[in-house]
């Protein structure tokens, strides 16, 4: 995207302009990388002014735009400091201010929060969300392994796995109706069950028919193999409706506000996140779980996770489970940026 590697095929267009063969300095992309890469020999204000000076912006304009960019990221008071005198989070803000100062059409953020600790990360996430709201003209292209970052910030998410585009859509679409098993387990956690589709559109799992509300425009042919995806927090304890699964309780984790239960159903391990239970069932007990037809989605011809596949673990876990490739959720904030493959 930024122009440091030439694509093997396809074109890169920014706002309709083909930049495939433009050198990085002529693309008009602001870039923020993992390690900030603030110039250590320049003060904060000179770091922010760097792009303006490099592009020969009118001299009189520079101080105002520097102050504006620093103000926007809440770093107005640190203009005279050197990068080494700032904390990691502050450096990150300066890096963002530096990228914003040139008023780029696209702001490229490459895992900007991965070098920060958890607390700072959630603070910066809120900052970025605010910036995103305040700068409707700037498209943010945000690369991350973290589903929360992607879901919080993005208008559209593109899921990449092993350098291939897996899925693309709004966060709601990807979360509620993922297209592939990879997306389902990467964006949020998911229980994935191998099923066969019968004539009435129900999913047949180990001989039991389960009702699933169809997704418009995504019909699955009768008799086809498919994967049933149910989010752990959408499973409820006890009998209820047509979709009831019975199994043996193998694990109970109390997580404060919730209980996480692992239930073995016909050789498949299901995870259920339930509101805190007064009296959780005993290990080894036979229990029932149910879900509403509208809360499940059928994934066509995917490879379903079998028992213990780890498909239901958190996003960081799934990211690692698909090594060695570099899976990443890409969040694009507007239509201006796009990668088309030729």
């Amino acid at each position: 995207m930024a122009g440091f590697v030439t694509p093997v095929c396809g074109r890169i267009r920014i706002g309709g302009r083909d930049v495939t063969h433009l050198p990085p300095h002529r693309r008009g992309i602001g870039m923020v990388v993992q390690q900030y890469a603030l110039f250590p020999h320049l003060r904060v204000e000179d770091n922010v002014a760097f792009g303006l000076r490099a592009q020969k912006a009118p001299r009189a304009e520079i101080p105002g735009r520097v102050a504006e960019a620093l103000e926007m990221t809440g770093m107005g008071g640190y203009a005279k400091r050197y990068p080494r005198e700032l904390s990691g989070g502050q450096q990150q803000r300066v890096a963002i201010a530096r990228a914003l100062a040139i008023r780029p059409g696209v702001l490229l953020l490459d895992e900007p929060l991965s070098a920060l600790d958890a607390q700072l990360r959630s603070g910066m996430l809120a900052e970025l969300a605010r910036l995103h709201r305040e700068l409707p003209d700037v498209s943010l292209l945000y690369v991350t392994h973290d589903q929360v970052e992607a879901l919080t910030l993005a208008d559209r998410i593109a899921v990449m796995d092993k350098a291939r585009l897996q899925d693309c859509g709004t966060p709601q679409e990807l979360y509620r109706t993922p297209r592939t098993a990879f997306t389902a387990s990467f964006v949020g956690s998911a229980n994935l069950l191998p099923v066969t589709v019968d004539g009435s559109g129900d999913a047949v799992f180990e001989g039991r028919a389960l009702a699933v509300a169809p997704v418009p425009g995504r019909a699955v042919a009768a008799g086809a193999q498919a994967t049933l995806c149910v989010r752990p927090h959408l499973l409820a304890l006890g009998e209820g409706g047509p979709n009831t699964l019975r199994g043996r309780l193998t694990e109970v984790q109390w997580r404060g506000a919730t209980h996480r239960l692992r239930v073995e159903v016909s050789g498949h391990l299901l995870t259920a996140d339930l509101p805190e239970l007064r009296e959780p069932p005993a290990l080894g007990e036979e229990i029932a779980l149910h879900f509403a037809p509208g809360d499940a989605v059928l994934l066509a011809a995917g490879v379903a996770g079998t028992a213990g596949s780890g498909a239901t673990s958190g996003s960081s876990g799934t990211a690692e489970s698909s090594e060695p490739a570099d899976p990443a959720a890409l969040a694009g904030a507007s239509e201006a940026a796009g990668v088309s493959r030729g």
Partner: protein
Amino acid sequence: MLVPSRAGRWVLWTVFALLFLPLFALPLLVVVAASFAGHWSGAFPSDPTTAHYAAAVHGESLQALVTSLVTAVVASLLALALGTWTAIAAAGLGKRAKRSLDALLMLPVAVPSVVVGLAVLVAFSRPPLLLNGTSSIVILAHTLLVTAFAHQSVAAALARLDPAYEQAAASLGARPSYVLWRVKLPLLLPSLTAAAGLCFALSMGELSATMMLYPPDWVPLPVRIFTATDRGSLFSGSALAVVLMAATLLVLLAVSRLRTRGSYR
């Protein structure tokens, strides 16, 4: 701990001291002592005097010191410019071209300095480039001899430089030349000063090529030290040697001061 026993360690340390002190510390001490001596015909120097230093900072000796300083400064700056240029240019070359360039630059290190002196003498004693008998020929030879070291240290620093800086600068709209001047060279500054210090020290002590080339009106300090000792004035030679060492050390110290102030991490 490699040697667990106390006695064993003491034995090793004693052997170390017996080897290290006479071999490395003694020579420097002796030269310093001799520079203050009026007489030395026994175990220890006698007749302490500062007359050698008085002579060392006057007349021809002072001239030699200035000659050496000028030669070393000019040669190291030239070498720094040339070595930095080649290091940056080499970074943009393919593997084989880079290796040939490296080999070319390392040639003066491999070739004996005397031969470099001879070659320069042979080449520049005839028109159109008649430099023989001028100070330029000495400076030229010194530049040639120290460029390799400047190139090597700058190339090493360049390889360690995080490419993220260059990429961030380019993404902000900086052209490659702007990136070079405003980002790369400032970030390389500590290594550049270190390289300059190294070149300066080498040039200050250069004797082999200089002996082949120096004209009568451009006598650097090492040559002066040699002529002094050659005619038997060992004490004034020592004083000159101490002046040489002190000048070299002072400049190295100043350079390393500059370096710590200029380092950013």
